[in-house]
C-alpha cells in the first residue's frame, strides 16, 4: 500500500508544481524553467526550520513558501526590467548556481544531502493522512489557479500576453503583473517543497536540477497549457507512465534507457502530433488568430 500512497503523493506534488508552473509560463507567458529551485528553497527552508529551529511543521512549510516567494521576486524584478527573454537566462543561472552553492554548505547537508528531516502526520495518523493532505493542497492549488485566471486578473494576463505594447499603452504595468504572477507561482512551489521534505525526509541539491525542470515542463506542455485540467492530466500521466513501463517485464539491462527513450520519444511525438497538448487551450498558437475550441 505504501507504494500506491507514495505514487499518489508524488502525483499530488507534481499537480501542484505543474499547475503553478502553468500560471507562470502558460498564463503569464514568462519563459522560465527554474521552477524546481523554488520547490527546493521551500523544501530546505521548511526542513531546516523544523529540524534545527524547532518550528512547528505547518508553520515551517508556510515559511518555505514565503521564502520561495521572496526569492522569486529578487530574481524576477531585475531580470524583467531588461526583457522577458532575460528571465530565462537569469533563472537558469539562479537555479544551477544555487544548487552548486548549496552543495558547499555543510550545515544543510551539502552535496550528500539533508537527512533526518522531522516527519509530519505519518507517525500519528498514518500515511493515508499525508496522502489526503497533499491531495487536498493539490485540489486547492488547481482551484486557486482557476479562480485567478478566470477572473479579471486572468483577463489582464491574457491581454498582456497577446500584446504587451498595447497593454502598457492602456496604463497597465506589465512588469508588476509578471513579477507578481511569478512570485505567486513560485510561492506555491515552495509550499509543495515543504510537503515533499516532511514525507520523504531526505533532500539533495542535485535532484532539483534541469532534469526536474524538464519533467515539470513536459507535464504542462503534454497536458495542455492554460487549461485548468491540462497540468493535472500531465502530472498524472507522466508519473504513472514510467511506473507502468516497469511492469512490462523488460530485462533490466535495457529497461532503464528504454524507459527514458520511450518517455521522451512519447513527448516528442506529442509535440508534433498534438502540439496543443492533451487538452487544448483556445489560443495556444501565437500567429494563428482563430482556432476551434477543442474540448478536453
Amino acid at each position, binding site marked *: 500500500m505504501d507504494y500506491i500512497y507514495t505514487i499518489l503523493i508524488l502525483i499530488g506534488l507534481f499537480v501542484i508544481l505543474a499547475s503553478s508552473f502553468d500560471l507562470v509560463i502558460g498564463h503569464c507567458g514568462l519563459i522560465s524553467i527554474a521552477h524546481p529551485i523554488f520547490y527546493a528553497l521551500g523544501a530546505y527552508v521548511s526542513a531546516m526550520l523544523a529540524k534545527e529551529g524547532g518550528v512547528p511543521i505547518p508553520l515551517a512549510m508556510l515559511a518555505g513558501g514565503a521564502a520561495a516567494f521572496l526569492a522569486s521576486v529578487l530574481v524576477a524584478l531585475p531580470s524583467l526590467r531588461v526583457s522577458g527573454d532575460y528571465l530565462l537566462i537569469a533563472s537558469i543561472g539562479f537555479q544551477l548556481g544555487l544548487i552548486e552553492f548549496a552543495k558547499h554548505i555543510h550545515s544543510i547537508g551539502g552535496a550528500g*544531502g539533508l537527512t533526518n528531516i522531522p516527519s509530519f502526520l505519518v507517525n500519528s495518523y498514518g500515511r493515508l493522512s499525508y496522502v489526503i493532505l497533499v491531495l487536498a493542497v493539490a485540489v486547492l492549488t488547481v482551484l486557486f489557479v482557476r479562480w485567478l485566471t478566470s477572473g479579471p486578473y486572468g483577463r489582464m494576463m491574457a491581454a498582456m500576453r497577446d500584446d504587451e505594447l498595447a497593454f502598457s499603452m492602456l496604463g497597465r504595468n506589465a512588469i508588476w503583473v509578471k513579477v507578481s504572477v511569478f512570485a505567486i507561482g513560485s510561492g506555491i512551489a515552495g509550499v509543495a517543497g515543504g510537503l515533499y521534505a516532511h514525507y520523504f525526509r*531526505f533532500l*539533495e541539491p542535485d535532484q532539483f536540477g534541469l532534469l526536474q525542470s524538464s519533467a515539470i515542463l513536459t507535464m504542462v506542455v503534454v497536458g495542455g497549457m492554460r487549461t485548468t485540467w491540462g497540468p493535472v492530466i500531465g502530472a498524472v500521466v507522466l508519473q504513472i507512465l514510467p511506473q507502468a513501463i516497469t511492469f512490462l517485464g523488460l530485462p533490466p539491462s535495457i529497461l*532503464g534507457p528504454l524507459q527514458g527513450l520511450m518517455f521522451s520519444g512519447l513527448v516528442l511525438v506529442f509535440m508534433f*502530433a*498534438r502540439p496543443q497538448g492533451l487538452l487544448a487551450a483556445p489560443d495556444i498558437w501565437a500567429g494563428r488568430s482563430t482556432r476551434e475550441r477543442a474540448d478536453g
Partner: protein
Amino acid sequence: MTNQPSTGLTIGRRTALALVLLSATSGAALAQQASYKFGLAMPLTGGQALYGNDQVKAAQWAVDEINKAGGINGKKLEMIVLDTQADPQVGIQAVNRLISVDKAPVFITAWSGVVKAVAPIANDNKVVELSVGANAPDIAKLGDYVYTTFPLADVDIRAVSNYSATTLGKKKAAVLFINNETGIGSAEVYRDTFKKAGGEVVAYEAYDQKATDFTGPLLKIRAANPDIVHLQGLVSESPQVIAQARQLGITVPITSYSGIYNPKLIEQLGAAAEGVIATSLAPGVDDLPAVKDYVARWVKEAGRPPNGLPYTQYLYDSPYLVAAVFASLDKKGTPVTGENFRKEMLAIKSFDLPLTGKVTFSDDHTVNKPVYLVEVKGGKWTGKAVVNK
C-alpha cells in the same frame, strides 16, 4: 489533427493499477514458501549504470548457480531487480515496490545517497536493508534494519594512508580530491590518518566535479613538493587527473581508492600509469583462485573484465549470504519476515563467501575486511600488499 491518444494511456494506467492491486492482495508471507524472494535495487540507468549493470549481472550469476545447485532446500531463489538510477528519489520508489508489491523480506542496494534515503522505509517496515558497496561512514548508524557487508569509508583509505606513512616511509603527502561528499569525506580521513602516523600533509586541494582541466590544483601540489599524492576522484575524471599530473612533472607515486582499479587505466595512460597504487577491498586474481575463474568467465562471456571488479565480487557473494539465511529459516520452518530474517542473519553471524572471504556482522553494523593494495608495475596491475586494517 484531433487524435485521441488518451484512450491508449487510460488502458495502460488501468492495467498497471490492476496489476498492483492484484499483487498487493495476493496473500501474506507463507511459512513454507514456494520460492524465496529478495530485492536488488541498483542503478540500471544513469551515470552509475556502468557499475550497476555489472553488479546486477554478477548477482544474477550467483542466483543461477544457487538454483542450479538445488536452490534453498529444493526451492527456488528469486531475485527482483529494480532501477534506482543511483538517485534517492527513484530508489525510494523502487524499495517501496519491493516491500509492498513484491513482499521481499530483504533487499540489497548500493550508493550512499540511496542507502540513506531508503533506510527509514526499511526500518519502518522491518525489512532488512543490505548495503553492498556504499561506503559512507554514517551508514552504520542508519537504523536497526540497515547492515553493510562492505567496509565503510574509513577502512581502505585509512589502510593506504597508514601504509604510505609507515611501510613506504613517505613523510609529505598531498591530497587531491573531487569536491563532492565522498571526495571531501575520504580526503579528511586520509589527512587525519597520515598526520597521526607521523606524516605531514603539504597540500590539500579540491577540484570541481565539472572540471576538465586540473592545472591549478596540480601546480599547487607540485609546488608543495610531496613524496606521495593521494587522489580521491571518480572513474570519469581520475585518469585525466593522473595524466595531467604526469605531464606537469609530478613523478611521485599516486594512490587512489578502488575507483581507478581497472585495466582500462593502463590502456588510457600507458607509461604514465606506472606507480599508481589502488586499494581493493576484495581479493584479486592472485589472491584467490575462485576470483581468477570469475574474471576469466567475465572475459569469456562479456569480452571484458567487469567494471569495478571488487564491487561485483561483493554482489556475487550477496545472494549466497541471503540464500544461507533463507536456508536456515527454511530448515527451521520459521515464517519468512524481515524481522525473522534479521534475527537469523545475526544468529548465524559469520558467513564464508566464495569471492570475498569471510564476513562477520558486528553489533555496530560495520564489517572489517583486509585491504588489498595493488600497483601498476610493468604495465599490469600487480598485488602489492595486504593490510589488515
